[in-house]
């Protein structure tokens, strides 16, 4: 049913109503006879330059929409030459009121010149300019992508709100597949690492026992060695080194310079090249401290545990099984680097500013809309501005401190530079415009506020107000804490000018806190 020429949308010509009555039609302009409606349309387009804007089109479309009961409202689809006509229910079409209807999109009055047409889908009235998109609809005017659908005219809204029209950004989560594979693999891994841990435990405990047994013996050095050696072989069966021609890990052939070694945990024959680190000798003490959660026995009974000098050779694979996880966990519990810690503070301040800024803008807005002379509003504005500036000054200082922090690694250095960049951009964006505003409306308003707040003290505060004040209070306390810290450090480093300005800052914050606390009264916390 889609064979209707795609271009011919909407009602195009007054002759359309003759559809079905006769196959031969006459051109209304030049009187030439053409064979089918489609040809006529092409003829009109090509020879007479007809297009949507032509008045005669308008006339007909209005005709059909006005009547509403027109038996052929769907002369719009000219693809009807052999499949019969599609009748669309027109109940949802809006009926135009003479001289009063306006285009749903542009709001212009609809008349013969700019057209009067119903969007076939939503039924609203449009001028021709705003109703020239094509959409496939079925006979009840619903979007239909199957073969039942036929091209109709529709408005832009219906056009763009078709399913999938403005959709983008496919992504596919493959985490579950990933985890499934990982789990099956890791179950085996866990078994192996349990086994290896077990062997390590027995080995170390055995070594400790041997050492304890011989700790007072003069010949200890002579006796301990062979005993440990026996113990090692009892833990795991060593691979026969006669048949081992190459390292089990790096697959390099053994030779004069590539000596064979047995891993004491898995028994495989591996090399100990510096470059590949297939195996290494690790002091027992280090192993014990790296895995503190394993149950090493009778540690106390060894008087000088620090004298325990035995080493255990283990291959890289076993070490990984036993220690990689522990190392990761250990690293995670390490103290946060100073720079990241400070960044958290910086971020909090940033959030404060970001939250304050819309309030400031709103105050500016209300001031602008009302009378600029209104005093309270001016006070409020000035107050907010000062508060913003305070926070930003604090932000600035903190960011400078972060920049001056000593960093331990290149990565931290990079983070530091990024933070500096971000902070300066933030300050530039938020602070400079505020600073540039002259202090015209900035008579200090502390006193006024105190009186105001005492007025409010006995007023009933709404919950929203209480919430707001509480939030402010929290912010201020946070500020106070930060300023105090900075003050201390300034005092320590004997930067007195800074300390003085900080002190005044602190006083102001204290004052504000008191304000709020009085405002909140019993609602405080």
């Amino acid at each position, binding site marked *: 049913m*889609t*064979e209707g*020429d*795609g*271009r011919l949308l909407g009602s195009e010509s007054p002759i359309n109503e003759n559809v079905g009555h006769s196959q031969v039609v006459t051109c209304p302009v030049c009187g030439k006879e053409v064979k089918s409606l489609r040809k006529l349309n092409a003829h009109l387009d090509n020879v007479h330059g007809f297009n949507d804007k032509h008045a005669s089109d308008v006339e007909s479309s209005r005709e059909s929409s006005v009547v509403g009961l027109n038996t052929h409202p769907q002369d719009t689809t000219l693809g009807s030459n052999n499949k019969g006509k599609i009748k669309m229910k027109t109940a949802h079409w809006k009926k135009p009121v003479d001289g009063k209807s306006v285009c749903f999109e542009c709001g212009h009055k609809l008349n013969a010149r700019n057209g009067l047409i119903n969007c076939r889908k939503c039924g609203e009235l449009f001028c021709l*300019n705003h109703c020239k*998109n*094509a*959409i496939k609809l079925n006979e009840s005017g619903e979007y239909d*992508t*199957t073969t039942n*659908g036929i091209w109709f005219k529709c408005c832009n809204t219906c056009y763009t709100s078709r*399913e*999938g029209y403005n*959709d*983008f*950004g*496919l*992504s*596919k*989560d*493959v*985490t579950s*597949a*990933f*985890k*499934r*594979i*990982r789990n099956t*693999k890791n179950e085996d891994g866990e078994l192996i690492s349990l086994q290896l841990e077990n062997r390590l435990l027995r080995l170390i405990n055995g070594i400790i026992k041997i050492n304890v047994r011989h700790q007072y013996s003069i010949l200890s050095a002579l006796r301990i060695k062979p005993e440990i050696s026996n113990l090692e072989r009892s833990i795991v069966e060593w691979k026969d080194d006669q048949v081992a021609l190459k390292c089990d890990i790096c697959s390099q052939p053994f030779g004069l310079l590539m000596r064979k070694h047995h891993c004491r945990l898995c028994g495989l024959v591996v090399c100990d090249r510096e470059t590949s680190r297939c195996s290494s000798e690790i002091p027992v003490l280090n192993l014990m401290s790296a895995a503190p959660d394993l149950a090493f026995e009778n540690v106390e009974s060894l008087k000088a545990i620090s004298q325990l000098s035995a080493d255990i050779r283990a291959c890289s694979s076993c070490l990984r099984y036993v220690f*990689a*996880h522990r190392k990761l966990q250990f*690293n*995670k519990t390490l103290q*946060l*680097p100073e720079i*990241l810690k400070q*960044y*958290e503070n910086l*971020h909090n301040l940033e959030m404060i500013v970001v939250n304050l800024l819309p309030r400031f803008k709103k105050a*500016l*807005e209300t*001031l*602008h809309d009302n009378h*600029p002379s209104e005093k309270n509003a001016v006070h409020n504005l000035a107050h907010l501005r000062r508060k913003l500036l305070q926070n930003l000054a604090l932000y600035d200082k903190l960011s400078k401190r972060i920049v001056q922090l000593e960093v331990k690694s*290149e*990565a*931290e250095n*990079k*983070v530091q530079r*990024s*933070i500096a*960049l971000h902070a300066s*951009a933030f300050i*530039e964006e938020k602070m400079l*415009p505020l600073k*540039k*505003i*002259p202090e015209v*409306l900035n008579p200090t308003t502390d006193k006024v506020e105190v009186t105001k707040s005492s007025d409010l003290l006995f007023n009933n505060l709404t919950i929203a107000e209480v919430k707001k004040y509480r939030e402010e209070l929290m912010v201020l306390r946070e500020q106070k804490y930060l300023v105090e810290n900075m003050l201390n450090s300034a005092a320590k480093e004997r930067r007195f000018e800074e300390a003085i300005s900080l002190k005044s800052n602190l006083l102001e914050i204290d004052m504000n806190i008191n304000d709020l606390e009085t405002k909140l009264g019993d609602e405080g916390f």
Partner: protein
Amino acid sequence: MNLFTVGDFYINRIANFQSKSSDTSIQEKSRVKALLLDNDTLSTISMCTTQTELLKHEIYLVDKLENIHRDPMPHLKCLCYLKPTEDSIQNLLHELQDPKYGEYQIFFNNQVSKSQLERLAERDDLEVVTHVEEVFQDYLIVNEDVFALEIPLYNLLQNQLVWDPKGLQETTSGLMSLLLSLKLNPTISYDPNSKLCQKLAKDLEYEVKTNERQLFDFPVRDSNPLLVLLDRKSDPLTPLLQPWTYQSMINEYIGIKRNLVDLSSVPNIDPDLKQVVLSSKQDKFFKDTMYMNFGDLADKVKNYVTQYKTKANITKQINTIEDIKEFIEKFPEFKKLSGNISKHMAIVSELDRQLQFKNIWEVSELEQNLSSHDDNNDDFAELKRILSLPNLESYYKLKLACIFVLRHGRNESRVTELENLLREQCDPTQISLFFQFKQRYGNAFKKQKVPQDSDLISGLTKKFNRLGSTAAENVFMQHVPELTTLLNDLDKNKFPQEGVKLLNQNIDPKTYMPQDVVIFIVGGLTIEEARAVHQFNEKYSQNKGNCRVIIGGTSIITTEQFLTDVSAIKDKPVDLL
């Protein structure tokens, strides 16, 4: 179908993804995130975002995955954005072996194969990976409606009729990712004269079919989106002509890579301006002017400066509330303006310098005349005059000769005269390039042109169509890319009658009415063509037209690159048929 929105969407998704299984202890401790990229995604990312934007997402550490000297930062969450190439997978395996960060979220910019996923999963015995996802952006976003795959022709083809298997694979997957990112399940059509396009079309269709269930599961649309595959070979004239619009001139004379314009070779340049960032996404002035011709551009820059001066005045006088309000609103814009102005001034003056210095005005006028006039004596006399100019770079002489052969190759006596002249003026490699060019395109063009001219009607419609869109252009922009014919058809809501063929024979091209179209040019895209598409889309957004178009190519080419591409692929006989 704005590609920048798609790019933003993906970056936002990568930067702010909250996986359920994340290790909360890491997030509680630090909000800072690290981002690891490989060479491909580095380009992708830098084309559609800036460092400032990444910083806003609290990504404070950006590094290459392949850099093995990264310091461990176990408190950070690490986002990996990678192209699933063998190299990247290897590097990632290495990283998971000895994780430097506390938690990993991995994003691939295209489909990751099952075996790759398996290898990763098996290596992740420490369970540091909390999320793996495929997003689809294996292409570079040049403008909001232009993309490129950045595959040099050398890697793309074995010879001019046969794909390099790897090049084909990369092109297919790049296009697949584009389709997926825009959620299009396309009807594929191609240039029937091009074996390359046919092969690509078939491969793409196969890929789409095999992934129909898992990926291309989009709601059926009443008008199925159209993908048009074209071959650079079909329009060799457009990339030969000197361009005159802002973006294309920068591309031609200075070069722009990953949105960076390198001005360091410009004499007496301010050290701050040695490398400037230029993107139509962030820079509104550039967005407005990128498709303007040089004359309009000069006016616009002048206006821009005056605009700046008036704005600079605003900052000086703030007395009333009104002023403050305005100031607060305008200030950030003003800040950007001042930095921008010097940047554009520097670029425009450098362009101007090169135009003068290389004699482009003269050359380009002749180029345009040759390409749009019929063969005539005046043009040929001018051609001979310019070819014997002593101070003109021989490259431009070569190019003029190529244009002549392309347009008027039938006039053999003149071609011989031209060849003799060229032998005096150019060095041997350039002469050989000329003959290669002649061999490749001279024949092809002749064959096409003759029947077209004999068919009077279609010739007329073509001319007429062109007239409509070029009425206002000047002498330097007379030539109109072949692509406009196709766009004109689309404009009338119909499937192009000639030059393109549907892969699926069951669809009747007469009733098919494409509304969303992706055009892809194998062998590279010129910015002049991007401009044609942009103008088409502008019309759409202004008049609420019916059709949206996105254009892309295996790369964005300059005139010089197009010519060197000719010699880059070792030639086999042109006509294998």
